[in-house]
């Protein structure tokens, strides 16, 4: 397998028990925070993250250091919010970090808090992760006891409290402004942007919302420097990324790889190809929120730009593999049903559009299709496009449109006989 010599993020795979503070400390843990507190101004930490080229790993791919730099320097109260509401079908990477390597997440959170002057951070975890977060709370407790959290961390002027906040079942809360609403005890519905959270975030204060994997990248960047980080990946997509591999694949799982490796490495060397040597029919590269990639191009490079160039996106890098036995109409009906279920109901195009698309899919699958149903699907997609309040509705149409585009014959085979 073409892998890193050692993991940067999934370090628990190389160092057993790194979830305990002693082991984490013995393997360079909290050295980045110590270095920042001793030798770096908050703005210098942000500059290092900027220079590393790290981009948000939750899906949007926004440059992390740039996001931090939008926090007003003179704000008296700011917050860090960790997005651990991992709910995208096909995505299970943050969960592994939370379970296996929680101190790296806490250290990354502390570095972000130091950079933006926050004294309080919340980790917003999905409610279904309740039992897993007991382990994170244990890590937090250990960090407090050893002086890596709390008042005057390691004798410095920097103080930080980290609290866990659990949601209660709503995919939409992964959208950062819906997450903030939910954290305030409200319905998890997205806010109008602007203002962005960096200006008006949690409790109206400037806030950075970062994904778990994003923050887990920060300690090694600060410890080893941006140049070290840029040795991985490509010029425009530097660094490492956890790829979640699921569906029709021999060895599903998380694989940490440098960005830019060819798809062949992920699918064949890591995943062992489709079961029983079957051919790959299509891939959803970013979970349910995917532009479907037809066929299998082993030389496709796995970075933000290359995925964009083929009309898709890297997103959260959640590769759901569909082999030749999979019925595309059925597969995309499942994904569409997911969006319908998770639409928050705030805006009409998403609430109604996803509902109508599910209705059409039900007819297609039940043998009750109307003659114009394929065009009707596309028409609904057109009516949602660019009109939804947040990305959920916009994502819902991606797999529908691209699957019709590439597999129209499979859809049309389900239409009533035109001769009748």
């Amino acid at each position, binding site marked *: 397998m073409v892998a890193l010599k050692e993991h940067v993020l999934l370090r628990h795979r190389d160092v057993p028990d790194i979830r305990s503070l002693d082991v984490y400390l013995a393997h360079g843990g909290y050295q980045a925070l110590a270095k920042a507190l001793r030798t770096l101004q908050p703005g210098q930490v942000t500059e290092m993250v900027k220079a590393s080229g790290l981009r948000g790993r939750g899906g949007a791919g926004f440059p992390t250091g740039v996001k931090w730099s939008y926090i007003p320097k003179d704000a008296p109260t700011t917050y860090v919010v960790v997005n651990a509401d991992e709910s995208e079908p*096909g995505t299970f990477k943050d969960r592994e970090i939370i379970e296996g390597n929680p101190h790296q997440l806490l250290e990354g959170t502390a570095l972000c808090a130091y950079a933006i002057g926050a004294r309080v951070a919340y980790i917003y975890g999905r409610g279904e992760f309740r039992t897993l977060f007991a382990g994170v709370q244990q890590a937090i407790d250990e960090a407090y006891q050893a002086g890596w959290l709390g008042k005057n961390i390691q004798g410095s002027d920097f103080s930080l409290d980290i609290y866990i906040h659990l949601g209660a079942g709503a995919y939409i809360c992964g959208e950062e402004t819906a997450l903030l609403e939910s954290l305030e005890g409200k319905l998890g519905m997205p806010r109008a942007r602007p203002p962005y959270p960096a200006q008006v975030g949690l409790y109206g204060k400037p806030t950075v919302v970062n994904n778990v994997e994003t923050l887990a990248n920060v300690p090694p960047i600060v410890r080893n420097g941006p140049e070290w980080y840029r040795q991985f990946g490509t010029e425009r997509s530097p660094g490492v990324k956890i790829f979640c591999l699921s569906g029709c694949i021999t060895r599903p799982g998380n694989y940490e790889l440098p960005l830019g490796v060819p798809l062949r490495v992920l699918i064949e060397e890591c995943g062992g190809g489709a079961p029983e040597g079957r051919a790959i029919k299509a891939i959803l590269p970013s979970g349910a929120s995917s532009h479907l990639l037809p066929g299998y191009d082993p030389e496709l490079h796995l970075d933000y730009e290359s995925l964009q160039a083929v009309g898709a996106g890297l997103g959260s890098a959640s590769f759901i593999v569909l082999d030749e036995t999979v019925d595309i109409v059925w597969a995309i009906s499942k994904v569409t049903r997911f969006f319908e279920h998770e639409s928050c109901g705030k805006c009409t195009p998403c609430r109604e559009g996803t509902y109508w698309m599910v209705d059409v899919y039900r007819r297609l699958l039940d043998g009750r299709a109307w003659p114009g149903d394929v065009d009707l699907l596309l028409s609904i997609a057109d009516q949602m496009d660019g009109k939804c309040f947040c990305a959920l509705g916009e994502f819902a149409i991606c797999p529908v449109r691209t699957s019709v585009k590439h597999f129209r014959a499979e859809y049309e085979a389900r239409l009533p006989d035109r001769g009748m």
Partner: protein
Amino acid sequence: MTAQDWRQELQEVLKKYPVKQSAVLEALHIRQRDKNYLSDADIRAVAEALEMPVTEVEALVGFYSLFRRQPSGKYVIQVCTDLPCALRGAEAFYRRLCARLGLPPEGGTTPDGLFTVEQVVCLAACDRAPVAQINLQYYENLTDEAMDAIIARLREQAQG
């Protein structure tokens, strides 16, 4: 749970936040935890403790899928049947589970009130499907045999 226990636990939660309302999801979780559903009295208690209108709390209960408004089984078995799991046989696994518990294919609650079985969306365990949560505990790489053993154990636990 006594009224005093609940207030004490809530007080701990409230320490995390500058505003009371932020504690509402956790407060509802605490009230639901022991019996797997929320009664009218639970909703009123949460509204009163956090100084929120009852209708607003009720709306939250409707919005977030982990809250239940109807009495449910002692053990709520939630099987993910989203696409990645379905590609690993989760739908058929779910139907077989329902059949073995004497439930219709869409799920429901067993007459003895022990098990509620339902399909849920992604649980972030796609690589270990079929996967279920039982009262939020993960059970992964499930087979019919493994599930039967779990159910037998829970039955015993409920009797003992």
